[in-house]
């Protein structure tokens, strides 16, 4: 699914992350690591938001550097603490992502309903609580037909019922469409509700397999 080729991310002279060669097969992976270990940096780099040296390949053929548009159509991302222009409504954000990611018509409807977002989806995001904002950003990451979805700290700020819904979204996309997932967290719910393929650890400025 994802291949790192001499990946190096530094902030000035400080080497934040270095992954020489690593291949991830399609699956659902937890990325662990303490605060500040570089989980968000890693996910933002894979999402194409942060610059880095080296390359990342999707399915061994789409390079983030050489096919930036094709790559971004297939990799979706939800930030840990999402920020959107506060004058837009949830629906307007969804319309923007549907157009950009070429999502099938009415794809968002089931997600809005199952997460119980009908009551606030037409309000400006400036009025959202952090939990509402998080739900919206998670929903946006499921729009289109991505091969890989990156969720940065999906467990924070949303309530337990919504967590169960999110788990069912992840399972469904993985089982039906073979979508891969990278989920980061500093604390993991190991209740077996997700068919996890492996766990990775961000430590000592690199990414390692731990199981």
């Amino acid at each position, binding site marked *: 699914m994802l291949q790192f080729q001499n990946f190096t991310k530094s*902030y000035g002279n400080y080497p934040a992350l270095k992954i020489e060669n690593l291949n991830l097969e399609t699956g659902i992976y937890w990325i662990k690591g303490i605060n500040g270990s570089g989980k968000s*940096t890693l996910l*933002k780099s894979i*999402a*194409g*938001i*942060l*610059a880095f040296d080296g390359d990342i390949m999707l399915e061994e053929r789409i390079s983030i*550097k050489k096919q*930036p*548009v*094709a*790559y*971004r*159509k297939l*990799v*979706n*991302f939800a*930030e840990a603490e*999402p*920020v*959107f*222009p506060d*004058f*837009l*409504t949830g629906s*307007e954000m969804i*319309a*923007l*992502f549907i*157009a*950009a*990611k070429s999502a099938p018509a009415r794809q968002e409807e089931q997600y809005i309903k199952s997460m119980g977002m009908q009551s606030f989806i037409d309000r*400006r995001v*400036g*009025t959202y609580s952090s939990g509402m904002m998080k739900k919206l950003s998670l929903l*946006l990451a499921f729009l289109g037909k991505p091969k890989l979805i990156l969720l940065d700290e999906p467990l924070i700020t949303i309530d337990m019922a919504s967590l169960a819904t999110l788990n069912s979204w992840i399972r469904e996309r993985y089982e039906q469409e073979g979508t891969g997932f990278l989920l980061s967290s500093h604390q993991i719910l190991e209740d077996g509700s997700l068919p996890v393929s492996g766990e990775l650890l961000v430590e000592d400025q690199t990414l390692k397999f731990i199981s």
Partner: protein
Amino acid sequence: MKSLTIVLLKIFANGFFRVHAGILLFIFLAMVGVVPPQYLIGYHKALMLAMDSSSVVMILVFISWFIYAVKSWHYVSGQIFAPSQHFLFYSSNALNKGKQIISWFWVQAAILSPVILYALIAVGVGFSNQYYLFPVCILLYLIALTYLSAVIYTKQINGLVDGNDQSILLKLSSKWRKPYFSLYVYHLLDKRKVPYLITKALSWLIITGVFYVFADVKTDVRVAGIAILAVITAHIVLIFEERKFEENGLCFSRNLPYSRPQLFLNFIGVYFILLIPESIWLFSRFNLLMAIELLFVGLSTVMLFHCLLYWFGLNMDKYLQWILGLFIVLFWIIMFKLLWILIPLNLSLAYLLFYNNYYKFEGEVSDKL
């Protein structure tokens, strides 16, 4: 109390000068450049004596200082309610009102420091020329203005956040589709109406001024070209704001599958919309070919100024230096009537900067306001 003053000074006074560096520099240069250097001191001394002796002049000066104060109220009030300043609502207002007012008094004094400095010199000049009444009025006026500002800020920070303010223009447009390229325009309508209106007023002043000065050669394309160059330079605050909005509000957009040529065209579209008032002027005043030429000169220059920021990030000091340098270069190109060469030159430079730097985002926003 001291610690609050330091925090407030850092957030609001420093922020004010960072945001308004361009316009303040412009005013300073206008005040220095208004007369030949050998008359500079004499001119300002005469101006100060007029303030110290004529009630009409003094009142006019008071009005202009008041406008400056209103501008600072607008900025500070906007910042007070910004999310990163929310902590003030549950920290600073635990102090007693008097202490808060003193802290805010120093903040406003810092913001007014250019005015205060000029006023103190004027008062000194007045005293040494045996004028006492008006100089004392000047001092009292500035103290009152600063105190009034402090009271306004303190009231705001001790009130409750409503959290439901929305610009009327956005309410009207709530049913319209909002494609990606339109977002900055909406952001301007929502949060940056004053900078937009000031820029447009400046545009109008520049156009009127340039054609007044060059009244004898007003059909010369070079005059119009220089007017357009100056108008675009007046837009640098809006250009900087655009990049800031893109970094802070639209960070997620780097993950969206838009191609760089598409994004580049998108920004040309944004600036075309912002320059509609100037375009109307161009098409009503010049023949069609010349108007199109001038519009493209404007758009290509604005794109060059915009794309510079992808290269070195949100650094206002560096930006102003580059704009000044480019202004001089572009000025001479226009003087040689090379407008048609300027358009592809600007656009290709801009595209090169954009193409090579758009994805080189390092994750550090230097001017996070």
